């Protein structure tokens, strides 16, 4: 069995800080003092309060082999380059922070500053390290107007291609008009809206089915439900009629639920047209035109071919899937493994063409020399 040797665009790679102070030094002095002086014996974490007990996940939710002598997993560029970028022939890599859910830090003023500090830290310390690195602005989504200003302030940077929305501090679905200033700024700056699961806030779940009481519940169902809820909300609120150039990248919610959701949205809209009078097309058409979905964590059916059969019920779904590894998290998907699951005719699109199309990137120059399908076939 061959390895995948074609170009890889990986749209979900978590670069982490080794020490919170790595990021805290990008904060205004007032907040640096807050972190450093408030309680030196029990430092305030940079993360938002979490409802998930990550200690229940093996290795703290991080791949065990990434706990080495080079600092916190994901914090060392050299290790990341060896483990990921060079090993898998990365063409471009989208850095997605430690989920980017700091907008859910309970103090809204601090949340905004931490989001800003994270983006500055990435621009200053990560992007210069490797030409393959691209990233997102961490949106202080609790204050959408402030987030929009931040997007316009930094959105001209050619290495910034998206705006990361992870936490949901307003406890409103993401299609809600409260969030529209963010989408307006993204459309104006031609940046993708990038959604990533969050463990810090599950407002909609609290309201409907209760907060998960175990890590199993959280991982098994709330990832998918967050993704489904976000997609259906953006479509049904008419976000894409209001911002017709807006593009959305959905990370780490899985993809197995997508055909069912697309069918059900189309089915329901026929019955509930009065509610969605702003829509001019079927919901599934908006999904196919505006969205891309990261493949990880790829559902592991008893037979991999059954996953492909399910996905293939949506015509053109291979044009909206983008490979992602989720490095260095415990649910990392290996590129070779994913290449074996997807049909030969999908691989180029999933591994780089779809992401390049979304971000208006040129195709890799090596594409003609080492097309993944040829490499796979030749090695058999």
């Amino acid at each position: 069995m061959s390895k995948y040797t074609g170009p890889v665009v990986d749209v979900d790679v978590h670069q982490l800080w080794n020490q919170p102070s790595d990021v805290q030094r990008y904060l205004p002095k007032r907040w640096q003092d807050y972190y450093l002086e408030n309680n030196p014996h029990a430092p305030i974490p940079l993360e938002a309060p979490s409802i998930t007990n990550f200690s229940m996940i093996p290795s703290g939710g991080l791949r065990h082999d990434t706990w080495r002598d080079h600092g916190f997993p994901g914090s060392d560029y050299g290790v990341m380059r060896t483990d990921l970028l060079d090993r898998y022939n990365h063409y471009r890599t989208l850095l997605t922070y430690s989920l980017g859910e700091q907008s859910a830090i309970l103090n809204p003023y601090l949340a905004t500053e931490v989001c800003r500090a994270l983006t500055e830290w990435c621009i200053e310390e990560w992007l210069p390290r490797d030409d393959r690195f691209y990233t997102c602005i961490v949106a202080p989504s609790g204050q959408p107007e402030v987030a929009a200003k931040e997007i316009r302030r930094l959105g001209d940077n050619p290495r910034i291609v998206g705006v990361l929305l992870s936490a949901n501090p307003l406890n409103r679905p993401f299609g809600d008009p409260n969030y529209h200033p963010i989408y307006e700024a993204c459309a104006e700056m031609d940046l993708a809206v990038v959604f990533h699961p969050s463990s810090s806030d599950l407002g909609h779940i609290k309201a409907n089915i209760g907060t998960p009481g175990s890590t199993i519940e959280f991982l098994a169902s709330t990832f998918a439900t967050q993704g489904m809820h976000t997609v259906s909300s953006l479509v049904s609120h008419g976000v894409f009629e209001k911002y017709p150039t807006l593009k959305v990248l959905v990370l780490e919610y899985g993809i197995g639920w997508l055909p069912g959701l697309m069918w059900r949205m189309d089915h329901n809209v026929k019955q509930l047209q009065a509610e969605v009078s702003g829509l001019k097309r079927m919901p599934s058409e908006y999904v196919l035109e505006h969205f891309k979905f990261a493949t990880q964590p790829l559902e592991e059916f008893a037979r991999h071919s059954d996953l492909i059969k399910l996905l293939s019920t949506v015509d053109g779904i291979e044009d909206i899937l983008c490979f992602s590894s989720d490095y260095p998290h415990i649910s990392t998907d290996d590129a070779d493994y994913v290449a074996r699951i997807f049909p030969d005719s999908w691989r180029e699109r999933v591994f780089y063409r779809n992401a390049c199309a979304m971000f208006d990137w040129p195709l890799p120059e090596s594409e003609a020399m080492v097309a993944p399908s040829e490499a796979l076939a030749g090695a058999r």
Partner: protein
Amino acid sequence: MTMEAVAAFDELEEGVPFVATAGRRKVVLTRWLDTVYALKDVCPHQSVSFLGGRTAPRVVASAPGAVECIRTSPLIICPWHAWRFDLETGDCTTSSKFRVKSYPAEVRDGTVYVDFERGASRRRAADDVNAAEVADAEPVGA
């Protein structure tokens, strides 16, 4: 029985997976309570190396709260997704459909020998399509 020398016993640290090469073969050696276990160095889940993984005793619970830790039945834990395999048999305790090939190993005069000819089949379910897809896979890392 043809035993091949693959490593010096002193190279092995208790409970720390060590990957050795013999020709084109890669084998993960694990020293546990002064016994050396040998498995093919390919996790059959996503075909990655066990290097960087860890080991642990088997933990069983015959009833709620009746937890027993069996130190004489060690498991190797894949570094990527924490899938667990019996070091003696290669049986996967995470998904019963998988097994990694195990080899007899012994230590003589400070050298670890492995019998690659007598390795047990890595897979239990012959009709498991996914296992068949990775049957000949090589590890990504190591």
